[in-house]
C-alpha cells in the first residue's frame, strides 16, 4: 500500500515538473506586466534545443543549458514584439506557438531526417535518495527554483520592482525603475523556466517527438491562474493537476474506468471556476497586457 501511494506521489511529481516550471515562469512574466500564452511554444523550442544540444555535445547537462537558452531566445522574440513594438500580447503569444510547431518540425526533418521523432539521447544520471529511490536531478533543481522564485519575487528589491511594473508601471517609472528592463527580465525568466520544462520533457523520453509539449504550456497557464499569480500557489496548483492525472492513470490500471477526458478537463474547469470567482477569486496584476508607455496606435 505504501508502495502504491509512493508510486502515485512520485508520478505526480514527474507529471507536475513541467507544469511547475512553466507556471512559475509565467508568474514572472505576468508579474512584470507581459501576458505569456507563448509558454507552450517556448517549451517546445526548449525541448528541441535540449535534444540537439545533448546530441551534438554529448552531455545531457549541456543539453539542459541549450534547452534553457532556446527558451530564452524564443521568449525574447515575444518580449521585443510586446515591449518594443507594443504588439497585443495574445497575438504575439499565438504567433510564438505556431512558430514553434513549424520551426521544430522543420529542423527535426533537417537534422534527424524524420518528421516524427529525433534520435535517442543520453539521459541525465539519477540521484539516489533513501526510501524514494533514484530521481532526476531536475526535480531537485525544480524544488530549488520554486523556493528561490518565491524569495526573489517577495523578499528582494528586484521582485518588488518587477511586481510594481505589472501593477502600476507609471508609478514604478516615476520612482526611477526601468520598466522596459524589468519587463524584459520577467519575460526572459519565463523563457528560461519554460525552456527547462521542455528540456525535462525531452529528457524523460530521451528524445524529441513532434509537438511533444501537447498542451502542457496551457495547463501551466491554468496553474498560474489557479495559484493566483504566485510561485507557491502555482506550484500547488500544478501538483493538484498532476495528482489528478496520476490517480487517473493508476485507477485505470486497476480496472476502474473514469473517462480520461474528464480528468484531462479538470485543470481547465478549475481555472474557469476560480477566474469567475465562484470559489476564491483569482485576479491578475492590474497592468498586465498593457504596453508602457501607452501609445496611440492604429
Amino acid at each position, binding site marked *: 500500500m505504501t508502495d502504491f501511494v509512493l508510486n502515485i506521489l512520485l508520478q505526480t511529481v514527474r507529471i507536475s515538473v513541467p507544469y511547475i516550471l512553466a507556471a512559475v515562469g509565467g508568474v514572472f512574466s505576468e508579474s512584470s506586466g507581459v501576458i505569456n500564452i507563448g509558454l507552450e511554444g517556448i517549451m517546445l523550442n526548449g525541448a528541441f534545443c535540449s535534444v540537439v544540444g545533448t546530441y551534438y555535445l554529448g552531455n545531457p547537462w549541456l543539453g539542459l543549458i541549450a534547452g534553457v537558452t532556446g527558451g530564452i531566445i524564443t521568449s525574447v522574440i515575444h518580449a521585443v514584439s510586446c515591449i518594443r513594438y*507594443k*504588439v497585443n500580447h495574445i497575438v*504575439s503569444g499565438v504567433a510564438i506557438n505556431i512558430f514553434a510547431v513549424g520551426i521544430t518540425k*522543420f529542423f527535426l526533418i533537417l537534422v534527424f531526417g524524420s518528421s516524427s521523432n529525433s534520435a535517442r539521447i543520453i539521459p541525465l544520471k539519477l540521484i539516489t535518495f533513501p526510501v524514494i529511490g533514484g530521481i532526476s536531478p531536475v526535480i531537485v533543481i525544480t524544488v530549488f527554483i520554486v523556493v528561490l522564485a518565491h524569495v526573489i519575487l517577495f523578499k528582494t528589491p528586484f521582485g518588488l520592482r518587477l511586481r510594481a511594473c505589472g501593477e502600476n508601471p507609471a508609478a514604478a517609472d516615476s520612482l526611477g525603475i526601468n520598466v522596459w528592463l524589468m519587463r524584459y527580465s520577467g519575460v526572459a525568466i519565463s523563457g528560461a523556466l519554460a525552456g527547462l520544462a521542455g528540456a525535462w520533457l525531452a529528457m524523460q523520453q530521451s528524445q524529441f517527438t513532434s509537438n511533444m509539449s501537447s498542451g502542457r504550456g*496551457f495547463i501551466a497557464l491554468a496553474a498560474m491562474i489557479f495559484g493566483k499569480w504566485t510561485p507557491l500557489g502555482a506550484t500547488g496548483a500544478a501538483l493538484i493537476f498532476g495528482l489528478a492525472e496520476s490517480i487517473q492513470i493508476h485507477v485505470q490500471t486497476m480496472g476502474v474506468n473514469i473517462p480520461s477526458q474528464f480528468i484531462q478537463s479538470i485543470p481547465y474547469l478549475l481555472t474557469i471556476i476560480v477566474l469567475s470567482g465562484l470559489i476564491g477569486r483569482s485576479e491578475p496584476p492590474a497592468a498586465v497586457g498593457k504596453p508602457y508607455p501607452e501609445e*496611440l496606435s492604429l
Partner: protein
Amino acid sequence: MKRKTLMINLAVPLMAVLFSLAVGALFILITGKNPFFVYSILFSGIFGNLYGIGQLFFYATPLIFTGLAVAFAFKAGLFNIGCEGQLYMGSLLCAWTGCVFSGLPGLLLIPVCLAAAAAGGAAWGFIPGMLKAKTGAHEVITTIMLNFIALAFTNYIVTSHFFVPGTVRTPQIAAAARLPAIAGILPGFKGSSLNFSFFIALAAALAVWYILYLSRFGYELRAMGYNPAAGEYAGVDSSKMMIVTLAVSGGISGLVGSNYVMGYKYYFEQGFSGGVGFMGIAVALLGKNHPFGIIAASLLFGGLSFGSLLVNSVVPKEILDILQAVVILSVVVGNTVFSRILLRNSATGDDKPDTQRADAIIGEQVSREGLRRK
C-alpha cells in the same frame, strides 16, 4: 487622413506577405533548394488548373469562417481565441443532427444541420460571454480553457458513445444532409473537394459586413469596442452585447462544420480541424478585421495550406507553418512601425491635439457626435 488609413490597411499586409515570402526563401535556402523553383511549383500548382483553384477555395473556406468569428468579436473589443473549441462543438452537433434526423427531406435537413453547427458553436461562445458579463472573467483565458474542454468532450463522445467501431469518427450523415460538391456541377473542378460551403462562407462574410457596418446592432457593437465607457453612456447594454457578440462569433466558428462534415467527409472526426481555429486569428489580423479583407487573407492562408502539400516532396512543408507565424508577427509589428511614422509626419504642421488626430487616423466612423445622436 482617410487616404493614410487606406494606405496602412493595404500597405502593411502587403509588405508583411512579401517579407514573409523572403523569410520563407531563407528557410528554403537552408535546405539547399532554389526558392524560385519552390515558389514556382507553388504558384503553378495553385493557379495552373481548375483543380488547384478549387483546392485553394476549399482550404480557404474554414478560414473565412474562423477569421470572421475572430474579427466579429474583435470589433466589439473582445478576443475570441476559442474558435477551435467552438468549431469542434458545432461540427459534432452538426454530424449528430445529420445522422439522427436522417428521415427529413434535404430541403429541410440541410438548413437544420447548418443551424445545428451554428448552435453548437454559439453555445460554446455563449459561456465565455456570460462569464465575462456576469463575473468579469477574462474571455482570453476562459476561451483557451474551453478549447481544451471541447476537445476532451468531443474526444469522449467519438471514443465512447457515437462512433464507428475501430475509428475515432462518427457515422456518415444522411445523403440528404450533404452539400453538393462543385466538381459534380462543373466537371472542370474534378478531384477538388470544393463544395457549396464556400458560398455559405461568402454569404457569411457579406452578412457580417452588413451587420457590422449597416445595422444599428453593429454600430453599437463597434461603439463598445471603440470606447466601452462612451458606449455605455450612449445607452449600449455592454453585458448583453458581450454575450450576444461572443455567441454569434462562436456560431460563425461552428459553421466550419458545413465544410468538413456536410461538404467533404460527411462525418465528424477527432482532430479534423488542423488548427484552423487558431489560424482564424492570423486571418483576421491580416484582413484587418474587415469581412472582405478576411476573404482575401483566407485565400492567402488557404493557398499556403494547400501549397504546403504541393511542395512537400521538395522541401519540408513546415516552412509554410513558419511563414504563417512570420505573417502574423510582421503584420502587427508593421502596424506599430507604420503608425509611428505616420504620427510623426502628421505632427508637423498640424495643430490638432493628439487624441483627435488619432481618432481621425483610426478612421472608425464611430464618432462622439454619432453616439450622441442615438
